[in-house]
Structure formats: C-alpha cells, structure tokens
C-alpha cells in the first residue's frame, strides 16, 4: 500500500478508520481538531462535533456499549470536561473497543494552561499509549482498540502538540472488518449505582494488575542498548529529541506511559551507569522510577515548564555534563523585534463589541475563543478569562461578591453551547442581575471554523437543526433579550448601556458573523489623504488592514493612515471612529450575501 506524509492527527484518523472505528465524536480544540475533521471524510464512520467533550465521550461510550468500535478526541483541557465520563467508563468497561485521544499542549501554543494528562491514566485506572511519530500514532489506534476489548476498558492515547502536528511518513493499510458485538443487558456492569459500582472497583484494580503484566511485553515499550554509560527513559516527542541529542545512549522508549513496566525499568536501570528521564511537563516517569527505589535524575536537569526542543534538551544536558557541547549560538544580536501577537481579523465583529466595552469602561468577564483577543492592545478591554464557559459563572460571582463597578460576561456562540448554558440557567434561577453578551459569530472561529449547534452545520458537511440562541435564552427564563448586529454600533452600544442598568439577569446577543463564513455588504474602505491628519484614532482599533502610510501630515509631522484594500473587508468601524470624515466607505456590493444565508 501507499506511503503518505501525514501529521499525527491525520494518522490517528487514518488509524481509526483502518481499525474499523464506526462512531467518533469530538469538540474542536487545538491541537486535536484535525483528527475528527480527517476522520469525517471516511463514509464508513459516523463522526460528529458534539456540544462539548463530555457529550462527545458519552456518545463514544454509548457506541462502544452498543457494540461498535468507537473513538473520541479532545485537547488536554477537554478531558477535564469529559473526565467524569472517563471515570465511570473505567468502571463499566466497554463492549466494543473505545479509544480516547487526549492532545496535550506543552508550551501553551493555544491553551490556558499546561497540564500533563498522563496523570489521568493513573487517576482513572486506564491504560495509556503515547506515539512518538505519525506511524506510531496510526498503529496505536488499532492497538488501543484491541487492548480496550481484551481488557474491557477505555484506552487513552496521549499526543502533544508536537506529535499531533508534526508530519512524517506513514505506511497505509486497508480497513479491517470488525464485526459488531451484540449488546447484552447487564445492569451490574453498566449501571453505576453504588451497589453495583462497589463490585466493579475490585475488577478495575485487578484489571490494572493484568495490564501491568502486559506492559512488560508490550512491543511499544522498547529497549535499545548502546553505550551503557547513559540510559534514558523517555516517550513521545521527547524520544525523538533523545535520539538527536544522545545518539549513542541506551534508551528505554515507553509507548505505554501507563501502567509502567517495572520489570523492564529495573532491568534497564541495572545495566546503565547513569539513569535519566527525559519527559516534558511533570516528572511522571521520574517519580515512578524513584518510587521503585532506583537512583534517577530528570527534572533536576530538564525543565518541567514549557515545550522541549532539540536545543533546549542539548543545553540542559550540557549543563548536567551529559554531552560535550552546548547548542550553537551565534554572537549576533538583533535586539527586540516587533512581535506578531494574534490579532482579531480585519472586519471581525468582535472588535466592534470590545471597542464599545472599552468606551463604556465595563469590567469584562470573557471566555475562550477568538474574542479572547479583546484583552490585547489596543482594545485591552478584558478583565478575566479562565476556561470554557467560565465567563458567566465568574460574572455572577463578582456581582455576588460586591464588585464595585459594572461587569458583564462575554461568551461566544460555540462556547455558550459548550458550558455557558448551565451557568446562565443558574444565574436566571438565582436571579443574579448582570448582563451576558453572547458574541454570536455563527461558527467555532479560533479552531478553524467548525460547526456548532448555533450554526447548524454538522461535521459531515450536512445542515442539521440550528438551535436559535435567542429563543433558547428566552426559554430558560431570561426576560430581557435583545439581538443587534455588531455593525449597527450605536444601537449595540445603546442596548448594552440599557442592559447593564437592569436589576435582572439579561442577555444581549451581538451578531458578529465571522468574516470567514460571511461577507460584508461593502467594498474596501479608503483614506482620503487630503482630509487625514494622522490623528491615530483609526490605528487604535487595532485593525490589521490599517497601516501608517508613507505620506506625512506636515502640520503635525506624523504619518497619515492607509487602508490595505487586499485586507479590508468593508466593516466600517474605522469610518465610525474617524473624527474628520477622512475615511471613504467602500461602495455597496452588488451581490452582498445576507447573514441568514450562512447558517
């Protein structure tokens, strides 16, 4: 069969298809998003975006109970959301195989924290596999499903941003035909009331003992003896860095981080002079090896913060005397360079909302999504962001906590469906008076425009039912609800001003259709150079389509503005903020796409 260059995520999808997976679910989240996007391209697999990771995992668990091989994927913090389901599924076991990908994000490329989800395997008492390249990622899905069926347990597959996004060559294979297993009613196994769950716990403990024995012979745990002066225990992306930095050392590569193979570790430790562990984030292996009474070094050499790189590993190893030379460092200094922090796209409706929030000097409890960029200069109008859905609960808490000043919650459509809805219901139920602004861009923007219940677009490209946010919010008892397109800025500002004066929980829906899934009504705007005096007002909206021009205003000796016609999408915020009418609106487009047409 063919060989292809695949990312780890593409390989996981291919592996799930080859292993006969029939049902898969996820909520998008970097670095895991592409797994389900790729898996959805195979017609044999039912694949969906669920409203959140817990819903996705429950769906996969249900499919496995029903007898079909099932698969769920999520980012590291997604498993926090789904963890309750992981824990009960550890007790109930499965029927057909169930593999769950957790994609960790050392270095916080796109996350609110760094957490090491190897702990979840130990915590929930389930096995975990960890690939170090795309071929292993593909192969480990089949291995995970076989383990899952043999040991009647969900199986975790842990990637990191590096293994999920790096590409390497993968040998493809055909899809295996896996017969459906019959579902047999068995409440003692599948109903976790205390009386039944109590009897499952000893089975879980006994299962871990059998898995521990298996870990000793699992072929993904590989011993490589070379120079016995140095032995390195490692896994995942770190294994690849170990091969680069310690090409002559002996290696114990753990394809199964949990349960760990005590026998193999003891044998390896007995043969090498100096034993080290190379692992990103927590000293998960190191603590275990030390608990076996073996002398080992790890976090005394390598950091427990951030993502590794070959030069970081070499530098740390050099300082510990493990290698002869530090990484190459040029003596040339460039000094601080202008950064390119992420910015809201040109024409993004979230900019209008945060422009108004800043103007009104509101305290903003925001949430996870593109609109988190409202914290960046020059908008700078965000006070708190924690995790998916936290905006509403934290806003209610600040209100109950006697906050001086007026706060609002800001949450996106996808995030609202993910975890905002229970918080709003709670606020309504308890009558906590504050305003929730739902910035409804009709897509899951930050992860690359996936569908959600509010867009109605499904992962398979179909048109599902679109949940009407305004009707939903009214139905849970919010009496004061107003929907305003963000382009009607004066109206939106007045609506927010009125809403925050209310003594009841209330909602403003700011319609901010994403520029990637909609089109504005106007052609690009332009600066009338003769009227611009370089006052910088339009610079301060932080639009990436607005630049300093090379033409100077002679009176004030400052550059006039220029709008890049390639980047401008014609939203008109700059037109609204310009005090000198120096910005010319683009012409109305002949064929403007109405917002309604996108969902």
């Amino acid at each position: 069969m063919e060989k292809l260059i695949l990312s780890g995520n593409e390989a996981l999808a291919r592996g799930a298809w080859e292993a006969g997976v029939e049902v898969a679910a996820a909520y998008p989240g970097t670095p895991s998003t592409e797994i389900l996007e790729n898996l959805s391209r195979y017609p044999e697999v039912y694949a969906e975006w669920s409203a959140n990771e817990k819903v996705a995992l429950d769906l996969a668990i249900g499919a496995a109970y029903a007898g079909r091989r099932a698969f769920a994927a999520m980012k590291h913090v997604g498993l926090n959301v789904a963890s309750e389901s992981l824990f009960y599924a550890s007790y109930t076991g499965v029927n057909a195989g169930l593999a769950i990908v957790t994609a960790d994000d050392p270095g916080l490329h796109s996350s609110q924290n760094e957490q090491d989800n190897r702990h979840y395997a130990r915590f929930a008492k389930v096995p975990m596999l960890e690939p170090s390249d795309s071929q292993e990622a593909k192969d480990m899905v089949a291995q995970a499903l076989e383990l899952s069926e043999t040991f009647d347990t969900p199986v975790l597959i842990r990637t990191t941003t590096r293994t999920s996004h790096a590409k390497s060559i993968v040998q493809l294979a055909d899809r295996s035909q896996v017969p459906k297993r019959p579902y047999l009613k068995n409440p003692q196994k599948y109903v976790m009331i205390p009386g039944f769950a109590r009897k499952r716990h000893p089975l879980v403990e006994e299962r871990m003992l059998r898995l521990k024995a298996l870990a000793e012979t699992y072929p993904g745990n590989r011993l490589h003896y070379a120079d016995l002066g140095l032995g390195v225990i490692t896994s995942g992306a770190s294994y690849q860095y170990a091969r680069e930095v310690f090409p002559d050392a002996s290696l114990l590569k753990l394809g199964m981080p949990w349960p760990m193979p005590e026998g193999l570790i003891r044998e390896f430790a007995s043969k090498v002079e100096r034993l080290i562990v190379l692992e990103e984030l927590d000293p998960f292996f190191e603590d275990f090896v030390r608990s076996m009474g073996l002398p080992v070094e790890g976090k005394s050499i390598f950091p427990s913060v951030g993502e590794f790189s070959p030069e970081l590993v070499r530098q740390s190893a050099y300082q510990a005397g493990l290698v002869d030379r530090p990484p190459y460092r040029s003596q040339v200094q460039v000094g601080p360079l202008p950064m390119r922090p992420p910015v809201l796209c040109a024409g993004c409706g979230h900019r209008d909302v945060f422009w108004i929030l800043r103007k009104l000097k509101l305290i903003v409890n925001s949430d996870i999504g593109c609109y988190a960029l409202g914290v960046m200069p020059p908008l700078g109008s965000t006070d708190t962001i924690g995790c998916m859905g936290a905006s509403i609960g934290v806003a209610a808490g600040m209100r109950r906590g006697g906050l001086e000043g007026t706060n609002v919650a800001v949450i996106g459509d996808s995030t609202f469906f993910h975890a905002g809805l229970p918080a709003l219901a709670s606020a309504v139920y308890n009558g906590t008076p504050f305003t929730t602004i739902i910035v409804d861009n009709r897509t899951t923007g930050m992860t690359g425009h996936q569908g959600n219940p509010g867009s109605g677009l499904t992962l398979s490209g179909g048109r599902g039912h679109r949940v009407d946010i305004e009707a939903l919010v009214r139905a849970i008892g919010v009496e004061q609800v107003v929907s305003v397109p963000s382009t009607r800025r004066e109206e939106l500002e007045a609506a927010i001003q009125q809403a925050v004066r209310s003594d009841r929980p209330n909602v403003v829906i700011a319609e901010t259709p994403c520029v990637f899934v909609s089109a504005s009504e106007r052609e690009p705007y332009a600066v009338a150079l003769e009227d611009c005096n370089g006052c910088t007002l339009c610079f301060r909206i932080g639009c990436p389509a607005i630049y300093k021009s090379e033409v100077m205003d002679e009176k004030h000796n400052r550059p006039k503005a220029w709008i890049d016609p390639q980047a401008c999408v014609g939203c008109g915020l700059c037109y609204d903020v310009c005090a000198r009418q120096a910005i010319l609106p683009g012409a109305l487009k002949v064929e403007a796409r109405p917002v309604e047409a996108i969902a």
Partner: protein
Amino acid sequence: MKKLNFLLAGVGGQGTLLASDVLAEVGMRAGAEVKKSEVHGMSQRGGAVTSHVRWGDQVASPLCEAGTVDYFVAQEKLEALRWIEFLSPASTVLLSDQSLPPTSTVFGDDRYPDDEQVLSTLRQVASSVRRVPATQIAERLGNPRVANSVLLGALSAALDVTEEDWLAVLASRLPPNHFEINRQAFLAGRQGDWAI
C-alpha cells in the same frame, strides 16, 4: 542522502505551510526520510509562522536544532530576523522582498526594520544570503500569491532533485487551474532569471 535542514518563515496567510508540504513531499520522492513540523500561534491570520522540514536517511526530531539550518527561506523580511538563532555560517538564506508590518508598528512605537538592517544582520550570521524578488516576479506573472513558488524555485536550484520531481509534486498539490502560473513562477525562481 545528506541530512538537510530547512526552515521556512512567514506570516499567517502567506502559504508557509503549503510550501513546506511541497518541500517535504519532494524529499520523500527523492528517497529521503522526511519530517516536518509547524510552529504557529493561535491567530487565524497575521501571526508568525515557521515550518521545519528535515530530509535524511534517518530523521528523529521533527524540529531543526538552533544553529543547524542549511536553507532558510524567509517569506517576509521581519520574519527573516526573528529566527536567526537557527542560522550558522553554513546556512544559505533566501530572502523574499515582502514586508508585512505588524499592527504594533501601526498603533504603537515599534519600528519595522529597514532593508539594510535585515541584510546586514543576516550576512553577519550566514555566509550566503540571496535576495529573491519573489513578489515582484509574482506580480509580473499576474498573481502575488505565487511568490512562494518563486522561492521554492530558487531553493530548488541549490538541491539535487530533478525539475520533473518538483513539478510533479507542485501539480499534485495545486488545483489544476493554478498549476501553470505556479510552474512559471517556480521556473523563474529556479533559473534565477529576475528580469522576466
């Protein structure tokens, strides 16, 4: 095959990832083990993007180590300076003519480096720095978006892979109606004929 490390750097939306996919695939076609890794922030557009591509008989890390890049393709001038820790005197730099000033140079006091600063800094680190008027050529061909193919063409001139292999990979990666203009851009870069 000799081990080769490539680094491509640009700004989101410039096609860094597509260019590096092509480069990885060309390596596989030429019989190498290849690995590739992208590093980008969370912005959809406008953030700094790098892509590491490695060819060799055996490749372990998908990331190049600092100071070990053989060929550095800078699609944007400020980004050319951002990654000089990856360069050494053995590096060859292909520097595009594109400037994309970040927003901090617009609303803040950050200054975008001038051409002289970019070139002299790169020349202090790497012994070979070649300016490629990629966007100029692309615009003359009628589409500024084919600047990447000009850069890949310029890179290809230094590598021991046939023109047919490069064009076959380009053809497999591009929609058919975009191939011809990209082929012309690639060949312009490969021939080093800036005066087309």
